[in-house]
Protein backbone atom coordinates (compact mmCIF):
# COMPACT_ATOMS: atom_id res chain seq x y z
CA UNK A 1 0.00 0.00 0.00
CA UNK A 2 3.01 2.31 -0.24
CA UNK A 3 3.24 4.75 -3.08
CA UNK A 4 6.62 4.33 -4.74
CA UNK A 5 6.01 6.25 -7.93
CA UNK A 6 4.04 9.45 -8.08
CA UNK A 7 3.78 12.05 -10.86
CA UNK A 8 4.30 14.98 -8.47
CA UNK A 9 5.81 13.71 -5.23
CA UNK A 10 8.95 11.74 -4.39
CA UNK A 11 8.74 9.09 -1.68
CA UNK A 12 12.11 7.61 -0.94
CA UNK A 13 12.31 4.24 0.70
CA UNK A 14 13.36 4.83 4.29
CA UNK A 15 14.91 2.52 6.85
CA UNK A 16 12.68 -0.25 8.20
CA UNK A 17 11.41 -0.23 11.76
CA UNK A 18 10.00 -3.29 13.54
CA UNK A 19 7.09 -2.99 15.98
CA UNK A 20 4.40 -5.29 17.30
CA UNK A 21 0.68 -5.03 16.74
CA UNK A 22 -1.50 -7.25 18.95
CA UNK A 23 1.46 -9.58 19.30
CA UNK A 24 2.38 -9.75 15.61
CA UNK A 25 5.67 -8.30 14.38
CA UNK A 26 5.13 -5.75 11.61
CA UNK A 27 7.45 -3.36 9.80
CA UNK A 28 7.04 0.32 9.17
CA UNK A 29 9.41 2.94 7.82
CA UNK A 30 11.23 5.73 9.62
CA UNK A 31 9.04 8.82 9.50
CA UNK A 32 5.73 6.89 9.59
CA UNK A 33 3.02 7.62 12.09
CA UNK A 34 1.77 4.54 13.94
CA UNK A 35 -1.54 4.56 12.06
CA UNK A 36 0.27 5.10 8.76
CA UNK A 37 2.51 2.10 9.34
CA UNK A 38 -0.51 -0.05 10.23
CA UNK A 39 -2.26 1.09 7.06
CA UNK A 40 0.77 0.25 4.99
CA UNK A 41 0.43 -3.27 6.43
CA UNK A 42 -3.23 -3.42 5.48
CA UNK A 43 -4.48 -2.91 9.06
CA UNK A 44 -7.34 -0.42 8.99
CA UNK A 45 -9.20 -1.38 12.14
CA UNK A 46 -7.57 0.51 14.98
CA UNK A 47 -10.12 0.50 17.78
CA UNK A 48 -13.64 -0.50 18.81
CA UNK A 49 -16.40 1.92 19.67
CA UNK A 50 -17.22 2.24 23.35
CA UNK A 51 -20.76 0.94 23.44
CA UNK A 52 -21.50 -1.11 20.36
CA UNK A 53 -17.91 -2.31 19.86
CA UNK A 54 -18.03 -1.36 16.23
CA UNK A 55 -14.68 -1.31 14.45
CA UNK A 56 -13.07 2.10 14.02
CA UNK A 57 -10.37 3.26 11.68
CA UNK A 58 -8.94 6.69 11.45
CA UNK A 59 -10.97 9.56 10.21
CA UNK A 60 -9.25 12.94 10.43
CA UNK A 61 -5.52 12.06 10.49
CA UNK A 62 -4.69 15.32 12.28
CA UNK A 63 -5.40 14.49 15.89
CA UNK A 64 -8.89 15.94 16.01
CA UNK A 65 -11.38 13.10 16.33
CA UNK A 66 -10.17 10.32 18.66
CA UNK A 67 -11.19 7.51 16.31
CA UNK A 68 -7.59 6.23 16.11
CA UNK A 69 -6.90 5.84 19.82
CA UNK A 70 -4.79 2.79 20.65
CA UNK A 71 -2.72 1.48 23.51
CA UNK A 72 0.97 2.08 22.84
CA UNK A 73 3.71 0.81 25.16
CA UNK A 74 1.12 0.42 27.90
CA UNK A 75 -0.25 3.92 27.52
CA UNK A 76 -3.92 4.15 26.54
CA UNK A 77 -5.63 6.67 24.25
CA UNK A 78 -2.61 7.46 22.12
CA UNK A 79 -3.61 9.36 18.97
CA UNK A 80 -1.86 7.03 16.55
CA UNK A 81 -2.55 9.20 13.51
CA UNK A 82 -0.09 11.85 14.70
CA UNK A 83 2.28 9.82 16.90
CA UNK A 84 5.56 8.91 15.20
CA UNK A 85 6.41 5.21 15.03
CA UNK A 86 9.46 4.10 17.01
CA UNK A 87 11.39 0.84 16.86
CA UNK A 88 10.10 -1.80 19.24
CA UNK A 89 6.78 -0.11 20.00
CA UNK A 90 4.12 -2.40 21.39
CA UNK A 91 0.84 -1.35 19.79
CA UNK A 92 -2.49 -2.85 20.88
CA UNK A 93 -6.09 -2.52 19.85
CA UNK A 94 -7.81 -0.75 22.69
CA UNK A 95 -11.02 -2.12 24.16
CA UNK A 96 -13.24 0.49 25.70
CA UNK A 97 -11.94 3.69 27.23
CA UNK A 98 -8.57 2.31 28.26
CA UNK A 99 -7.42 2.12 31.85
CA UNK A 100 -4.45 3.73 33.44
CA UNK A 101 -2.48 0.50 33.27
CA UNK A 102 -3.19 0.44 29.58
CA UNK A 103 -5.63 -2.46 29.25
Amino acid at each position, binding site marked *: *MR*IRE*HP*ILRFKERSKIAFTFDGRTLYGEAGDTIA*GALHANGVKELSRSLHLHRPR*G*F*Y*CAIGNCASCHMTVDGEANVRT*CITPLKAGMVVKTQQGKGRVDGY
Partner: protein
Amino acid sequence: MGTEEAVVIGAGPAGLFAAYELLLAGADVTLIDRAAQAGGQLVKQTHKFFGSKEHYASIRGIDIRHRLEHALEKNGDGRLRTLYSTTVAGFYADGALACVKAERYYRLHPEVVVVATGASERTVAFAGNDLPGVYAAGAVQTLMNEQGIRPGNRALMVGSGNIGLIVAYQLMQAGIQVERVVEAADEIGGYQVHASKLRRLGVPIETKTTIKRAFGTNQVEGAEIWRLDAKGEGIAGSEERLTVDTVCLAVGLSPLVELLSQLSVDTRFIPEFGGVAPVLDETYMTSRPGVFACGDVANVEEASTAMVEGRLAGIHAAGYLNRQIPRRKEKIQALETSLRTLRSGPASEHVRKGLRKVGEHA
Protein backbone atom coordinates in the same frame (compact mmCIF):
# COMPACT_ATOMS: atom_id res chain seq x y z
CA MET B 1 1.62 43.89 29.80
CA GLY B 2 1.83 40.39 28.46
CA THR B 3 4.80 38.09 28.50
CA GLU B 4 4.76 37.90 24.68
CA GLU B 5 4.16 40.71 22.26
CA ALA B 6 2.30 38.86 19.50
CA VAL B 7 1.18 35.25 19.23
CA VAL B 8 -0.13 33.83 15.97
CA ILE B 9 -2.06 30.57 16.34
CA GLY B 10 -1.93 28.47 13.18
CA ALA B 11 0.85 28.47 10.60
CA GLY B 12 -1.28 28.03 7.49
CA PRO B 13 -1.25 30.68 4.75
CA ALA B 14 -3.24 33.12 6.90
CA GLY B 15 -1.09 32.75 10.02
CA LEU B 16 2.18 32.80 8.09
CA PHE B 17 1.25 36.08 6.44
CA ALA B 18 -0.02 37.63 9.66
CA ALA B 19 3.32 36.74 11.27
CA TYR B 20 5.14 38.14 8.25
CA GLU B 21 3.50 41.57 8.55
CA LEU B 22 3.95 41.68 12.32
CA LEU B 23 7.65 40.94 11.87
CA LEU B 24 7.97 43.59 9.18
CA ALA B 25 6.47 46.07 11.61
CA GLY B 26 9.16 45.20 14.15
CA ALA B 27 7.13 43.09 16.56
CA ASP B 28 8.30 39.96 18.36
CA VAL B 29 6.22 37.07 17.11
CA THR B 30 5.53 33.59 18.46
CA LEU B 31 4.03 31.35 15.79
CA ILE B 32 2.31 28.21 17.04
CA ASP B 33 1.02 25.18 15.15
CA ARG B 34 0.00 21.74 16.31
CA ALA B 35 1.52 20.21 13.19
CA ALA B 36 5.23 19.40 13.08
CA GLN B 37 5.76 21.92 10.29
CA ALA B 38 4.34 25.15 8.90
CA GLY B 39 1.97 25.30 5.95
CA GLY B 40 -1.47 24.27 7.19
CA GLN B 41 -3.53 22.90 4.31
CA LEU B 42 -0.75 23.77 1.87
CA VAL B 43 1.44 20.80 2.87
CA LYS B 44 -1.08 18.39 1.31
CA GLN B 45 -1.90 20.33 -1.84
CA THR B 46 0.03 18.82 -4.72
CA HIS B 47 -1.93 20.76 -7.34
CA LYS B 48 -1.17 24.17 -8.77
CA PHE B 49 -3.11 27.01 -7.24
CA PHE B 50 -5.41 29.50 -8.87
CA GLY B 51 -5.39 33.24 -8.32
CA SER B 52 -2.82 35.66 -9.59
CA LYS B 53 0.95 36.00 -9.47
CA GLU B 54 0.78 37.84 -6.14
CA HIS B 55 -1.12 34.84 -4.71
CA TYR B 56 1.41 32.34 -6.06
CA ALA B 57 -0.88 31.17 -8.86
CA SER B 58 0.31 28.25 -10.95
CA ILE B 59 2.55 27.09 -8.10
CA ARG B 60 1.75 23.92 -6.17
CA GLY B 61 0.60 24.29 -2.55
CA ILE B 62 3.54 22.19 -1.35
CA ASP B 63 5.94 24.61 -3.02
CA ILE B 64 4.12 27.78 -1.89
CA ARG B 65 4.67 26.68 1.68
CA HIS B 66 8.45 26.68 1.24
CA ARG B 67 8.36 30.16 -0.24
CA LEU B 68 6.35 31.49 2.67
CA GLU B 69 8.63 29.91 5.23
CA HIS B 70 11.63 31.37 3.46
CA ALA B 71 10.10 34.86 3.45
CA LEU B 72 9.43 34.56 7.18
CA GLU B 73 12.96 33.51 7.99
CA LYS B 74 14.35 36.37 5.94
CA ASN B 75 12.29 38.93 7.84
CA GLY B 76 12.43 37.14 11.17
CA ASP B 77 15.57 38.93 12.24
CA GLY B 78 15.75 36.86 15.40
CA ARG B 79 12.32 38.10 16.46
CA LEU B 80 10.41 35.03 15.28
CA ARG B 81 9.92 32.11 17.64
CA THR B 82 8.21 29.04 16.20
CA LEU B 83 6.49 26.47 18.37
CA TYR B 84 5.49 23.53 16.19
CA SER B 85 3.97 20.24 17.38
CA THR B 86 2.29 22.51 19.89
CA THR B 87 -1.47 22.68 20.40
CA VAL B 88 -3.16 25.71 21.90
CA ALA B 89 -5.67 24.01 24.17
CA GLY B 90 -7.06 26.93 26.14
CA PHE B 91 -7.75 30.62 25.71
CA TYR B 92 -8.71 32.15 29.04
CA ALA B 93 -10.73 35.18 30.03
CA ASP B 94 -7.59 36.99 31.22
CA GLY B 95 -6.09 36.56 27.74
CA ALA B 96 -3.71 33.75 28.66
CA LEU B 97 -3.10 30.83 26.33
CA ALA B 98 -2.49 27.27 27.45
CA CYS B 99 -0.25 25.36 25.05
CA VAL B 100 0.53 21.65 25.05
CA LYS B 101 3.71 20.24 23.60
CA ALA B 102 4.67 16.60 24.16
CA GLU B 103 2.24 16.25 27.08
CA ARG B 104 3.65 19.35 28.81
CA TYR B 105 1.72 22.53 29.41
CA TYR B 106 2.98 26.04 28.77
CA ARG B 107 1.30 29.32 29.55
CA LEU B 108 1.66 32.39 27.37
CA HIS B 109 0.24 35.81 28.01
CA PRO B 110 0.46 37.83 24.79
CA GLU B 111 -0.53 41.42 24.12
CA VAL B 112 -2.12 40.54 20.80
CA VAL B 113 -3.27 37.23 19.40
CA VAL B 114 -4.02 36.43 15.78
CA VAL B 115 -6.18 33.31 15.53
CA ALA B 116 -5.63 31.56 12.19
CA THR B 117 -6.66 28.01 13.05
CA GLY B 118 -8.34 27.25 9.73
CA ALA B 119 -11.31 24.94 9.42
CA SER B 120 -12.23 21.36 10.26
CA GLU B 121 -13.90 18.87 7.98
CA ARG B 122 -17.52 18.03 8.42
CA THR B 123 -19.04 14.60 8.16
CA VAL B 124 -22.40 13.36 6.97
CA ALA B 125 -24.84 10.80 8.35
CA PHE B 126 -25.27 7.44 6.64
CA ALA B 127 -25.23 3.83 7.78
CA GLY B 128 -21.71 2.56 8.21
CA ASN B 129 -20.08 6.00 8.23
CA ASP B 130 -17.95 4.87 11.17
CA LEU B 131 -16.42 1.84 9.40
CA PRO B 132 -12.66 1.81 8.90
CA GLY B 133 -12.14 2.96 5.32
CA VAL B 134 -14.46 5.97 5.60
CA TYR B 135 -12.25 9.04 5.75
CA ALA B 136 -12.44 12.79 5.62
CA ALA B 137 -10.91 14.01 2.35
CA GLY B 138 -8.15 15.80 4.21
CA ALA B 139 -7.19 12.59 6.04
CA VAL B 140 -6.77 10.82 2.71
CA GLN B 141 -4.54 13.66 1.57
CA THR B 142 -2.43 13.42 4.71
CA LEU B 143 -2.05 9.69 4.27
CA MET B 144 -1.17 9.66 0.58
CA ASN B 145 0.49 13.04 -0.01
CA GLU B 146 2.42 13.43 3.24
CA GLN B 147 3.06 9.85 4.24
CA GLY B 148 3.09 8.15 0.85
CA ILE B 149 0.57 5.48 1.82
CA ARG B 150 -2.50 4.49 -0.18
CA PRO B 151 -5.80 4.43 1.69
CA GLY B 152 -7.05 1.59 -0.53
CA ASN B 153 -7.46 0.59 -4.17
CA ARG B 154 -10.93 1.74 -5.19
CA ALA B 155 -12.67 4.79 -3.87
CA LEU B 156 -16.00 6.58 -3.79
CA MET B 157 -15.82 10.35 -3.35
CA VAL B 158 -18.79 12.02 -1.69
CA GLY B 159 -18.97 15.72 -2.56
CA SER B 160 -18.02 17.59 -5.73
CA GLY B 161 -16.83 20.89 -4.34
CA ASN B 162 -13.27 21.88 -5.20
CA ILE B 163 -11.92 19.72 -2.39
CA GLY B 164 -13.82 16.62 -3.54
CA LEU B 165 -12.76 17.13 -7.14
CA ILE B 166 -9.13 17.85 -6.30
CA VAL B 167 -8.77 14.97 -3.85
CA ALA B 168 -10.40 12.61 -6.36
CA TYR B 169 -7.81 13.71 -8.92
CA GLN B 170 -5.04 13.22 -6.35
CA LEU B 171 -6.35 9.72 -5.59
CA MET B 172 -6.06 8.87 -9.28
CA GLN B 173 -2.52 10.28 -9.30
CA ALA B 174 -1.63 8.03 -6.36
CA GLY B 175 -2.91 5.00 -8.28
CA ILE B 176 -6.30 4.65 -6.58
CA GLN B 177 -9.22 4.16 -8.95
CA VAL B 178 -12.04 6.58 -8.21
CA GLU B 179 -15.21 4.70 -9.14
CA ARG B 180 -17.55 7.64 -8.78
CA VAL B 181 -17.93 11.16 -7.46
CA VAL B 182 -21.42 11.76 -6.09
CA GLU B 183 -22.98 15.14 -5.39
CA ALA B 184 -26.32 15.69 -3.66
CA ALA B 185 -26.94 19.10 -5.28
CA ASP B 186 -28.19 19.67 -8.83
CA GLU B 187 -24.83 20.95 -10.00
CA ILE B 188 -21.16 20.22 -9.51
CA GLY B 189 -19.97 22.44 -6.67
CA GLY B 190 -16.35 23.03 -7.68
CA TYR B 191 -14.73 24.71 -10.64
CA GLN B 192 -15.55 23.39 -14.09
CA VAL B 193 -11.88 23.01 -14.97
CA HIS B 194 -11.34 20.66 -12.00
CA ALA B 195 -14.41 18.62 -12.96
CA SER B 196 -13.34 18.41 -16.60
CA LYS B 197 -9.84 17.18 -15.83
CA LEU B 198 -11.31 14.41 -13.68
CA ARG B 199 -13.86 13.43 -16.33
CA ARG B 200 -11.05 13.22 -18.88
CA LEU B 201 -9.54 10.46 -16.72
CA GLY B 202 -12.79 8.53 -17.07
CA VAL B 203 -14.15 9.29 -13.58
CA PRO B 204 -17.96 9.72 -13.64
CA ILE B 205 -19.49 12.55 -11.61
CA GLU B 206 -23.16 12.14 -10.68
CA THR B 207 -25.27 14.99 -9.38
CA LYS B 208 -28.51 14.56 -7.37
CA THR B 209 -26.92 11.43 -5.97
CA THR B 210 -25.55 10.56 -2.57
CA ILE B 211 -24.24 7.69 -0.48
CA LYS B 212 -26.91 5.55 1.19
CA ARG B 213 -24.63 3.31 3.19
CA ALA B 214 -21.19 1.83 3.47
CA PHE B 215 -20.98 -1.87 4.25
CA GLY B 216 -18.37 -4.41 5.28
CA THR B 217 -17.58 -6.55 8.32
CA ASN B 218 -14.48 -4.97 9.78
CA GLN B 219 -13.81 -2.40 7.12
CA VAL B 220 -15.42 -0.93 4.02
CA GLU B 221 -16.07 -3.56 1.34
CA GLY B 222 -18.55 -1.58 -0.68
CA ALA B 223 -20.96 1.31 -0.78
CA GLU B 224 -24.48 1.89 -1.98
CA ILE B 225 -25.37 5.14 -3.69
CA TRP B 226 -28.82 6.37 -4.65
CA ARG B 227 -30.45 9.19 -6.53
CA LEU B 228 -32.24 12.05 -4.80
CA ASP B 229 -35.61 13.50 -5.75
CA ALA B 230 -36.41 17.20 -5.95
CA LYS B 231 -36.96 17.31 -2.19
CA GLY B 232 -33.59 15.74 -1.53
CA GLU B 233 -35.06 12.39 -0.46
CA GLY B 234 -33.50 9.15 -1.63
CA ILE B 235 -35.44 7.42 -4.43
CA ALA B 236 -36.24 3.81 -3.51
CA GLY B 237 -35.16 1.43 -6.24
CA SER B 238 -32.41 3.72 -7.57
CA GLU B 239 -29.73 2.13 -5.39
CA GLU B 240 -26.50 1.07 -7.00
CA ARG B 241 -23.77 -0.98 -5.35
CA LEU B 242 -20.13 -0.07 -5.84
CA THR B 243 -17.22 -2.30 -4.91
CA VAL B 244 -14.93 0.09 -3.09
CA ASP B 245 -12.64 -0.16 -0.07
CA THR B 246 -12.44 3.58 0.52
CA VAL B 247 -15.17 6.16 1.02
CA CYS B 248 -13.92 9.68 1.07
CA LEU B 249 -16.08 12.51 2.45
CA ALA B 250 -15.64 16.03 1.12
CA VAL B 251 -18.84 17.56 2.38
CA GLY B 252 -17.61 20.92 3.55
CA LEU B 253 -15.60 22.67 6.20
CA SER B 254 -16.53 24.47 9.38
CA PRO B 255 -14.43 27.27 10.91
CA LEU B 256 -12.33 25.96 13.84
CA VAL B 257 -13.65 28.52 16.31
CA GLU B 258 -13.24 26.48 19.53
CA LEU B 259 -10.52 28.73 20.93
CA LEU B 260 -12.47 31.88 20.17
CA SER B 261 -15.58 30.35 21.74
CA GLN B 262 -13.67 29.78 24.96
CA LEU B 263 -13.09 33.53 25.05
CA SER B 264 -16.81 34.10 24.39
CA VAL B 265 -16.20 36.52 21.54
CA ASP B 266 -19.25 37.38 19.43
CA THR B 267 -19.91 34.74 16.82
CA ARG B 268 -22.64 34.14 14.34
CA PHE B 269 -23.96 31.14 12.47
CA ILE B 270 -23.17 31.66 8.80
CA PRO B 271 -24.44 28.77 6.63
CA GLU B 272 -22.28 30.01 3.72
CA PHE B 273 -19.18 29.43 5.86
CA GLY B 274 -20.34 26.04 7.09
CA GLY B 275 -20.86 26.98 10.71
CA VAL B 276 -20.27 29.49 13.42
CA ALA B 277 -17.85 32.29 12.50
CA PRO B 278 -16.48 35.13 14.64
CA VAL B 279 -17.86 38.60 14.09
CA LEU B 280 -14.98 40.88 13.04
CA ASP B 281 -14.65 44.63 12.64
CA GLU B 282 -12.93 46.15 9.60
CA THR B 283 -9.54 45.61 11.24
CA TYR B 284 -10.13 41.84 11.59
CA MET B 285 -10.47 42.26 15.33
CA THR B 286 -12.99 40.14 17.22
CA SER B 287 -15.25 41.63 19.88
CA ARG B 288 -12.36 41.06 22.28
CA PRO B 289 -9.81 43.89 21.91
CA GLY B 290 -6.38 42.64 20.81
CA VAL B 291 -7.69 39.33 19.47
CA PHE B 292 -7.76 39.10 15.68
CA ALA B 293 -8.93 36.35 13.31
CA CYS B 294 -8.26 35.67 9.64
CA GLY B 295 -8.32 32.94 7.00
CA ASP B 296 -10.62 29.92 7.06
CA VAL B 297 -11.42 30.35 10.76
CA ALA B 298 -13.11 33.64 9.87
CA ASN B 299 -14.68 32.54 6.59
CA VAL B 300 -14.04 29.29 4.78
CA GLU B 301 -12.58 30.33 1.46
CA GLU B 302 -9.30 29.99 -0.44
CA ALA B 303 -5.58 30.13 0.28
CA SER B 304 -5.33 33.24 -1.89
CA THR B 305 -7.83 35.18 0.22
CA ALA B 306 -6.43 33.67 3.43
CA MET B 307 -3.01 35.13 2.58
CA VAL B 308 -4.40 38.61 1.96
CA GLU B 309 -6.56 38.49 5.08
CA GLY B 310 -3.54 37.30 7.05
CA ARG B 311 -1.51 40.30 5.91
CA LEU B 312 -4.32 42.69 6.78
CA ALA B 313 -4.83 41.14 10.21
CA GLY B 314 -1.06 41.29 10.80
CA ILE B 315 -0.91 44.98 9.85
CA HIS B 316 -3.87 45.84 12.08
CA ALA B 317 -2.49 43.78 14.96
CA ALA B 318 0.79 45.69 14.61
CA GLY B 319 -1.22 48.91 14.66
CA TYR B 320 -2.88 47.77 17.86
CA LEU B 321 0.61 47.38 19.32
CA ASN B 322 1.39 50.94 18.17
CA ARG B 323 4.00 49.69 15.76
CA GLN B 324 4.73 52.10 12.91
CA ILE B 325 4.33 50.77 9.41
CA PRO B 326 5.64 52.78 6.46
CA ARG B 327 2.95 53.61 3.90
CA ARG B 328 0.42 51.82 6.04
CA LYS B 329 -2.67 53.34 4.46
CA GLU B 330 -1.62 52.58 0.88
CA LYS B 331 -0.71 49.06 1.84
CA ILE B 332 -4.08 48.40 3.44
CA GLN B 333 -5.90 49.92 0.49
CA ALA B 334 -4.01 47.79 -2.01
CA LEU B 335 -4.69 44.62 -0.03
CA GLU B 336 -8.37 45.42 0.36
CA THR B 337 -8.67 46.03 -3.36
CA SER B 338 -6.99 42.72 -4.03
CA LEU B 339 -9.49 40.94 -1.76
CA ARG B 340 -12.44 42.64 -3.41
CA THR B 341 -11.24 41.62 -6.86
CA LEU B 342 -10.68 38.03 -5.80
CA ARG B 343 -14.19 37.92 -4.41
CA SER B 344 -15.97 39.75 -7.20
CA GLY B 345 -16.70 36.79 -9.46
CA PRO B 346 -19.70 34.47 -9.58
CA ALA B 347 -17.65 31.71 -7.93
CA SER B 348 -17.50 33.85 -4.78
CA GLU B 349 -21.21 34.61 -4.53
CA HIS B 350 -21.57 32.57 -1.32
CA VAL B 351 -18.57 34.31 0.25
CA ARG B 352 -20.03 37.73 -0.42
CA LYS B 353 -23.33 36.58 1.03
CA GLY B 354 -21.64 35.20 4.13
CA LEU B 355 -19.57 38.33 4.63
CA ARG B 356 -22.66 40.51 4.34
CA LYS B 357 -24.26 38.48 7.11
CA VAL B 358 -21.23 38.87 9.36
CA GLY B 359 -21.21 42.57 8.54
CA GLU B 360 -24.88 43.05 9.39
CA HIS B 361 -24.11 41.86 12.85
CA ALA B 362 -20.91 43.83 13.42
